[in-house]
């Protein structure tokens, strides 16, 4: 399949890229990893007249802790997250997530920022970023705008990112001691989108009482689902088998899956319950190890 013709633009700086976005408006798309965009262009689901390739903008690919945040650059690839020792040791939930996205070749190209900007609820990072309470830094003509993850996803394939903005960074608050997270995904085969998946991030105190809980769900609604009832239930309670099971049940109630080729809605609700239970227990294990 040959994609429709387009003009190819190669800005070297973010301001240059933003100027192109303003000049060409809705007819322009950012080309980052391109692993969703190019297949969509082949299928004529997307037909941008202008592709703004940001891959040659220097300094946009990094993973670092700075001023109380884990900062991930707008061009950081999945493969870089997967192989980062900082991510492996301190943010295993992100390692879990990156590792189950598509396949090695796609992870060499695909970016975290693109995974969010695409606004596909079947993508894996959105739920993880909800669990981590990340912030998306959108850079536009007027400078940087920080978007809390809970208001970033509007609906199916629609985010709060404005047309002339680029995700320049993703920020995640550095978790306090005794924190841990995990991502559990069920897929029909390696590389598939999730039938359902659950992301959980916990902070517990010395007594094992939950001081912070973040739970996000993948592909069971028009956006990633924040399992707010489950989070509120766990807060202030001991994180034990019984409370985890109850929280998982509440998460399943927050899920809004639809029946499709991957299974009936009822099955997916059951799946959310079990995946959330497993993610919470592994998060607890990592928080207390």
């Amino acid at each position, binding site marked *: *399949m*040959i*994609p*429709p*013709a*387009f*003009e*190819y633009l190669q800005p070297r700086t973010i301001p240059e890229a933003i100027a192109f976005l303003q000049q060409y408006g809705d007819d322009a798309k950012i*080309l980052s990893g*391109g*692993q969703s965009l*190019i*297949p969509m262009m*082949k299928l004529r689901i997307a037909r941008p007249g202008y*592709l703004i*390739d940001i*891959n040659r903008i220097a300094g946009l690919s990094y993973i670092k802790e700075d001023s109380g945040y884990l900062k991930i650059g707008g061009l950081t690839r999945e*493969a870089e997250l997967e192989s980062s020792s900082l991510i492996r040791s301190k943010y295993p939930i992100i390692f879990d997530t990156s590792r189950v996205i*598509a*396949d*090695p*070749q*796609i992870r*060499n*190209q695909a970016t975290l920022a693109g995974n969010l900007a695409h606004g596909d609820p079947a993508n894996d990072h959105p739920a993880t970023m909800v669990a981590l309470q990340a912030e998306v830094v959108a850079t536009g003509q007027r400078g940087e705008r920080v978007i809390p993850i809970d208001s970033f996803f509007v609906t199916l394939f629609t985010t709060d990112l404005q047309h002339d903005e680029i995700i320049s960074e993703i920020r995640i608050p550095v978790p306090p001691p005794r924190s841990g997270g995990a991502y559990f995904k069920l897929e029909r085969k*390696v*590389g598939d989108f999730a039938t359902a998946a659950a992301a959980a991030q916990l902070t517990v105190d010395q007594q094992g009482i939950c001081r912070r809980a973040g739970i996000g769900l993948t592909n069971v609604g028009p956006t990633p689902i924040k399992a707010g009832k489950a989070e509120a239930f766990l807060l202030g309670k001991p994180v034990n088998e019984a409370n985890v099971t109850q929280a998982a049940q509440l998460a399943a109630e927050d899920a809004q899956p639809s029946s499709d080729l991957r299974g009936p809605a009822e099955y997916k609700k059951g799946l959310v319950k079990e995946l959330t239970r497993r993610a919470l227990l592994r998060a607890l294990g990592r928080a207390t190890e």
Partner: protein
Amino acid sequence: MAQKQLIHVKVNGRDRAAEVEPRLLLVHFLRGIPGLTGTHVGCDTSHCGACTVLLDGKTVKSCTIFAVQADGCEVLTVEGLMTNGQLHPLQEGFKAEHGLQCGFCTPGMLISSYALLKKNARPSEEDIRWGISGNLCRCTGYQNIVKAVQYAAGKLEEGGQGGSPNVS
């Protein structure tokens, strides 16, 4: 019609320049301009991995990247694996262990395995299966592909040639 752009891509060590439309996919560039038809177009939807090549040392699906994105980069295709007429240990391994039947997926399998062994000289069976998880084979059931990669890992460890293919 979009304006054509002059690009230079170093393919298996040789500079290849062409004026291309921006929408030309890398796989079509490789097959069309230097005529390197070893890289196959399989599913064309970035699932099967038959079109896998190394782009600046990293595996990519060449059906899901534009040739203009490879401007100034180095590409290794299956044709570049041989050194001085000698098969790469991976190629030897696929032959010795019957790592192919119809052979359609083989160029992509070889390149993914090559990238895996560069990163991890002693992969476990699980590492190998994970390393080729972006490459589909509909014939072999993967058993013999895994054996072929293990064969190559053993050969390379013994100091067999082919650690660096002919890219000069």
